[in-house]
């Protein structure tokens, strides 16, 4: 699979491209997204990495929990805080298959996350460039860098596989029999 990191901050391009550990961590995040898909959750997964080691994993849990704020990042943070103090995030990086939403981007910034790597952009709720730029706006907490495009196609395909399914919980489920899974992913602009 051919991919490259599309850095949002060009200055950091040299230090982030073609780094196999980034790929390794994002693969772990994609595995979490696969698990989410298998549990009828919107397939978003993430891992937090501290000193090269995964300290927490999370997948979207909004449907099971009936809580619209249980995004993958929050699930992982919850498990991390069972063992660690919040200060660990200032030395940790997040790998998440879809760009963090505005809520998660603000949470990550308040926790002092060191850096965020994501797969595909989120043009509906994205908080690191998709809709707003919570990671870099003027604010009281330290900004963090966010890099998108790592395994972008895989992240998009996971979402598409979810959205061709029928939502049985919807009041009037739409028939999606005629829906076809598209496999072409347009390149980034």
């Amino acid at each position: 699979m051919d991919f490259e990191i599309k850095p949002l901050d060009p200055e950091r391009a040299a230090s982030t491209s073609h780094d196999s550990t980034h790929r390794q961590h994002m693969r772990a995040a994609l595995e979490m997204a696969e698990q989410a898909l298998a549990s009828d959750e919107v397939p978003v997964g993430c891992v937090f990495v501290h000193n090269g080691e995964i300290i927490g994993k999370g997948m979207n849990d909004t449907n099971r929990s009936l809580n619209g704020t249980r995004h993958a990042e929050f699930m992982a943070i919850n498990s991390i805080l069972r063992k660690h103090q919040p200060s660990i995030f200032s030395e940790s990086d997040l790998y998440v298959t879809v760009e963090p939403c505005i809520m998660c981007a603000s949470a990550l910034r308040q926790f002092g996350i060191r850096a965020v790597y994501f797969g595909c952009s989120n043009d509906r709720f994205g908080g690191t460039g998709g809709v707003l730029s919570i990671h870099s706006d003027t604010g009281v907490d330290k900004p963090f860098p966010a890099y998108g495009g790592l395994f972008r196609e895989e992240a998009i395909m996971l979402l598409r596989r979810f959205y061709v399914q029928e939502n049985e919980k919807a009041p009037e489920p739409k028939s999606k029999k005629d829906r076809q899974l598209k496999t072409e992913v347009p390149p980034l602009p």
Partner: protein
Amino acid sequence: MGSWPNTQCQHQPDRLTDGLLESSTPSGCLIPLHTKAEVQNNVQIIQTYVATIHAKSANTVLKIVDDACRGLESINLNHLRRLVKPEYLPVYLQKDENKEQSRILGRIAVDSAGSTDVEVASPLAECNGQPSILHFLACATSVISRENLQSLLSSALPCSVNGLRPCIRVIKVPSTPPASHDQAEQFSQQYWPTVYKGGNPFGPHPSIFAHATEEIQHDAKDHMVLAMHAGLATSFEAKGEPIGAVIVDRSCSKGPIIVVVAGDARWNNVTKPQDRKSGNVMAHAVMRAIGMVAKKRLSLTNASQAPEMNGEQLNSFNDEPLNPLESDIYTRDVLAPGGYLCLDLELYLTHEPCLMCSMAILHSRFGRVVFGQRLPRTGGLTANIVGNHDSSTENLSSRPSYSLWWYPKLNWKLLAWEWVERDPPQASLSEQDIQA
């Protein structure tokens, strides 16, 4: 303080809030928030053609031009008058109008390109010396070219037989509808006669806001007091900051029902660092309150029992009650089954929520939110900074204003109010960097 009412008065929400009201009764009022677009009020200006036409041909001309523009780039001009009598033109155009009259009466006129034309006497001037003309706002200049418009008009105007080319001018008009009668009046003087159609292009319709304000203003104070006590309760035990949240269900005909209360718990099970940084951000009062609603709903789907409380298992979400005040409300079976997230629920907060909590409010589909103290350095709901010359906001003048409660690009919108107390408390968080 920390004196929440005794827990014996379970299932009697009125007595609960009454008890709180006795201890402190701030009075205040609800101020609807403004959206970012309302505050900026950034009027988009475009260029449009205005043609002088014979009144009798007005309907024909209007139809021909609108037909020609249909399907092309759509620019909504519904708030602008399309046909205007000369006396209703804005003053700045009436000056041009005098030249135009001269031109129509067969004198020498200078057109906008600067070339001089000699026109023949126009049939427009034949009506008892009172030329019956109208000014026609044709379309945006981006839609069709001047030449195309010229030939469209010529095909419709009776005067074209005499070789008179209809005069076309380009003027600036607001492409965004006015937000009020006052603004329509201002547009009418500054640009072109404009109509206010009662809506609000930059935010919720004023009547929706007025109706909702009417509905909540009688008990908003009670919920604000309860929120304050929820914040005091957790901060009293050093579990969090004195920030509180109350969620209310107004869908029941019996009146508002308190669903959950939650205080901030960012320091619960967290070693407070010297610099008092952020603590457990997930335990902000709003996040906890949302989590408690979800757990209550979950218990409705699993079995008809009170939501389980398992305080022993370390749960960093802190979405279980932490004190008698919270558990008293939490254990009440008040939510109807089948509800979705926090749809149609109301949220009362002691402080303006941070960006995380503001977006969580949207994700949870709340219908209304009321908050007490503005937090201009961290809040996610207000659009404008109060007191621009305030030293506390000076170094954050470049901080964007978000007004997430009504943000056009996002897929959820709600109503938001600021609760302004008549006698604000001495101690204030607003000049700190705290995220509520």
